[in-house]
């Protein structure tokens, strides 16, 4: 497999313009002759479908929810970065580019990241013009805050609902195109396969989630904006429906999967309360500005009420270990240290599966210093949400938090045009691997999704169609289409008719998640990964033997939907562990215990400064590794240290 990044050369600040100038165009009158499928209606898919429809292409957009407005982008709280420098604090496109490359621990492509920083500015203009009610200052200008340890205030936000408001902006733009007839929207429709014809992506196979009907949709090209795969861990901050099916089906047809082991664990989530737990809820990172993280010093104290543990018996482990940054160390460092103290038996809260996985985030001092009113103003909504979920009031007793999976940096390998290794198959948003390297900075995923959707894909889709001009006609009676539909129908039947049906899909998903979380989560080692690689195939075999789905495939059947997604998570989970095993270094979200120095990650640029692009060879567990070497012309690799 050849990996050509197709990035332009020359001064980095001119690359995107240069690329656009060289782009092939499709004349406005010809655009409606082309059908473009966009799978996904989140920030990336919604923005792309709306923009392509507006340009005159014939767009078909798909999502599994009952409305495109419900894509998981809606849940993003914190904000979106943009290099506007409205605060006059020295921000610039270059600085955002620099921060993103460095934050990604030097595992991303410089040209892509620069383009992202460049486009960030236009995203804000676009969103404001759509009516996104961003926070404003008294003078009427847009407000900003500093987020995730950034040294400048470049984050735009709409209360704690930035993702919601940005998504509604894209959804409204999409609605306008649906009304205009340029976009046909298919909600409650799940994509289950890609149709490949003549070496190109020419359509998809879907299952209508209301009737169970399996149908082909033929097009000139396909764009996947189907989000991240964090639910491979079973418990994550993602929505329950988030899945890897679309990207995994593409992978099985030849799209390389890049860096699957790069996953981000967010340090401040509400801990698991019991084995029945179905998802984890994020508590904004901003809480660490005023909260102090601690656990009891002595194991005997973990079941005591926190109020009864005297100051001297409290272990403020982040403050002690990282005096310079204290409670504000980066996400991965905060997460890993929570793992270590709970491994040492110092975790607090209820016991789940024999372990206490929680640490305190204490606002006692802040309330004493600033008063309850100030704290209420800053975090009132979050405290209410915490109380609704746990029944405890953080005004009276410390919060309990624990890390949880939040974002996946890995995804389909794409070139500078966001094209995968299958011609005619593009990927945008969290579904691709492109811009965040081994670690994503806070407030940068919304930026990337919208940059891809509004500004990159509309150009590169046109370029692709301008290059191929006319594709051979393809109809539903062609063997490639019939074959793809039959393969999907067979798989549904196979799931429905396991030989020895015993357990619901969740039973297996929870077990898979547990393996991945303990062995390929915050901290990984060779032994554990090898163990996981032995356990996953066994569990997968058991799944295919024993999964139990009641009802039929020809109706609304939520158990069947989940089973199909779990089946794909099994294969992706195995690839994650392989990738983590192969990457004998620690970088960003990937921490290998063998490669550290005083608890700090040890990157190995000599051997691992590459993108790992895995190729499907026909069987799970036997992929081929391809490498895209990374070079850094502008930001010279340095070591991250927070000591």
């Amino acid at each position: 497999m050849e990996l050509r990044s197709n990035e332009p050369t020359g001064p980095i600040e001119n690359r995107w313009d240069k690329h656009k100038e060289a782009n092939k165009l499709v004349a406005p009158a010809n655009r409606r002759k082309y059908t473009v499928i966009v799978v996904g209606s989140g920030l990336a898919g919604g923005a792309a479908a709306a923009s392509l429809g507006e340009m005159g292409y014939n767009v078909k957009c798909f999502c599994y929810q009952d409305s495109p407005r419900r894509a998981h982008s809606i849940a993003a709280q914190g904000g979106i970065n943009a290099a506007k420098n409205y605060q006059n604090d020295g921000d610039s496109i270059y600085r955002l580019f620099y921060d993103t490359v460095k934050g990604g621990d030097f595992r991303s492509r410089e040209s892509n990241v620069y383009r992202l920083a460049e486009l960030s500015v236009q995203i804000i203009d676009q969103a404001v013009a759509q009516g996104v009610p961003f926070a404003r200052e008294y003078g009427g200008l847009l407000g900003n805050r500093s987020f995730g340890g950034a040294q400048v205030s470049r984050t735009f936000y709409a209360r704690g609902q930035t993702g919601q408001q940005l998504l509604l902006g894209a959804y409204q733009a999409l609605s306008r195109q649906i009304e205009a007839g340029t976009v046909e929207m298919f909600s409650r429709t799940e994509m289950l396969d890609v149709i490949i014809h003549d070496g190109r992506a020419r359509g998809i196979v879907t299952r209508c989630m209301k009737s169970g009907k399996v149908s082909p949709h033929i097009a000139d090209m396909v764009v996947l904006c189907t989000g991240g795969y964090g639910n491979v861990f079973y418990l994550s901050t993602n929505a329950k429906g988030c899945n890897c099916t679309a990207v995994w089906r593409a992978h099985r047809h030849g799209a390389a999967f890049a860096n699957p082991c790069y996953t981000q664990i967010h340090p401040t989530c509400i801990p698991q309360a019991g084995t029945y737990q179905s998802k984890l809820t994020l508590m904004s990172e901003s809480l660490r500005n005023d909260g102090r993280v601690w656990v009891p010093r002595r194991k005997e104290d973990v079941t005591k009420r926190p109020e009864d543990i005297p100051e001297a018996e409290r272990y403020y482990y982040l403050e002690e270990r990282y005096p310079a940054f204290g409670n504000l160390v980066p996400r991965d460092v905060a997460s890993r240290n929570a793992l270590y103290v709970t491994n040492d038996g110092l975790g607090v809260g209820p016991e789940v599966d024999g372990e206490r996985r929680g640490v305190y985030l204490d606002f006692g001092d802040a309330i004493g210093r600033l008063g309850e009113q100030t704290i209420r103003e800053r975090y009132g909504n979050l405290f209410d949400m915490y109380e609704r979920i746990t029944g405890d009031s953080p005004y009276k007793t410390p919060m309990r938090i624990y890390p949880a999976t939040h974002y996946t940096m890995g995804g389909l390998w794409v070139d500078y045009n966001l094209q995968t290794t299958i011609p005619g198959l593009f990927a945008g948003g969290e579904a691709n691997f492109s811009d965040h390297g081994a670690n994503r900075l806070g407030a940068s995923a919304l930026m990337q999704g919208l940059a891809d959707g509004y500004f990159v894909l509309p150009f590169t889709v046109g370029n692709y169609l301008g290059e191929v001009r006319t594709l051979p006609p393809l109809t539903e009676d062609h063997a490639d289409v019939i074959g793809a539909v039959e393969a999907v129908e067979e798989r549904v039947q196979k799931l429905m008719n396991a030989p020895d049906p015993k357990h619901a899909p969740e039973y297996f998903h929870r077990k898979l998640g547990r393996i991945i979380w303990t062995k390929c989560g915050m901290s990984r080692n060779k032994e554990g990964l090898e163990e996981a690689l032995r356990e996953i195939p066994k569990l997968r075999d058991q799944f295919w033997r024993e999964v139990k789905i009641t009802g039929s495939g020809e109706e609304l059947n939520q158990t069947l939907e989940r089973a199909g997604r779990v089946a794909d998570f099994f294969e992706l989970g195995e690839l994650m562990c392989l990738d983590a095993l192969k990457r004998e270094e620690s970088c960003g979200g990937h921490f290998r215990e063998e490669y550290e120095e005083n608890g700090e990650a040890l990157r190995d640029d000599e051997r691992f400064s590459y993108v790992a692009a895995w190729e499907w060879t026909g069987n799970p567990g036997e992929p081929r590794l391809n490498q895209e070497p990374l070079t850094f012309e502008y930001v010279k690799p340095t070591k991250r240290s927070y000591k």
Partner: protein
Amino acid sequence: MSEELLNLTLHVWRQDGPNASGRFETYQAKEITTHMSFLEMLDVVNEELIENGKLPIAFDHDCREGICGTCGMVINGVAHGPQKLTTTCQLHMRQFNNGDEIWLEPWRASGFPVLKDLVVDRTALDRIIQAGGYISIRTGSAPEANEMPIAKAIADHAMDAAECIGCGACVAACPNASASLFTAAKISHLSLLPQGQAERQDRARQMVAQMDAEGFGGCTNHGECEEACPKGVSLRWIARMNRELVRSMVKADTPIESRKR
């Protein structure tokens, strides 16, 4: 955070499909902990149903953190259940007592046909937005964002209206099954902002026409919608919508024909 175990009796609306007739069926939910969310309680019941070869209860949900608007059912006669300002997915079992009987029904409104059990079709809400719930701005043609200052109070006000999650509880709670609160929230969000002025003229008219065409009832000021709304969307937006409507009727020089579904 003391934990208790609850044993509950559920009476759940079961309906095989849009054209089937429905009925209540009774299930026991045993040893449910008070820390569980309401939907986790249903997960437990469903997993047991599946293992026993029965059909699980179909219900909609996704984010499970109160923001996507996917979840929603009528719990003991109240849309989203007993806790104020709380979606079904954010409701926790500590709101219930051991031995409680709980009645579960789908949103009931002619604009929301039942698809199965507790799952309804809410695409009518999408069509109301498609009728004009947007600002037409071509991608890439937006002016510099800070060129147009907007008073903080106005931006905050618009944000209050924009918080609607499109769940449809307001419709389910309304005796007339009116979608006025939902529609009014979007009309208000956009008409408050300077960006929304160019299309203000037609927006309210078109959206309200679509709402009527979808079979939602009119507003007669019961106020049940505001009570049920998990996001605290205020009734005063409906008054604002009515003003917008009058304004656009008076100024309109062409009548807007009734829109088809």
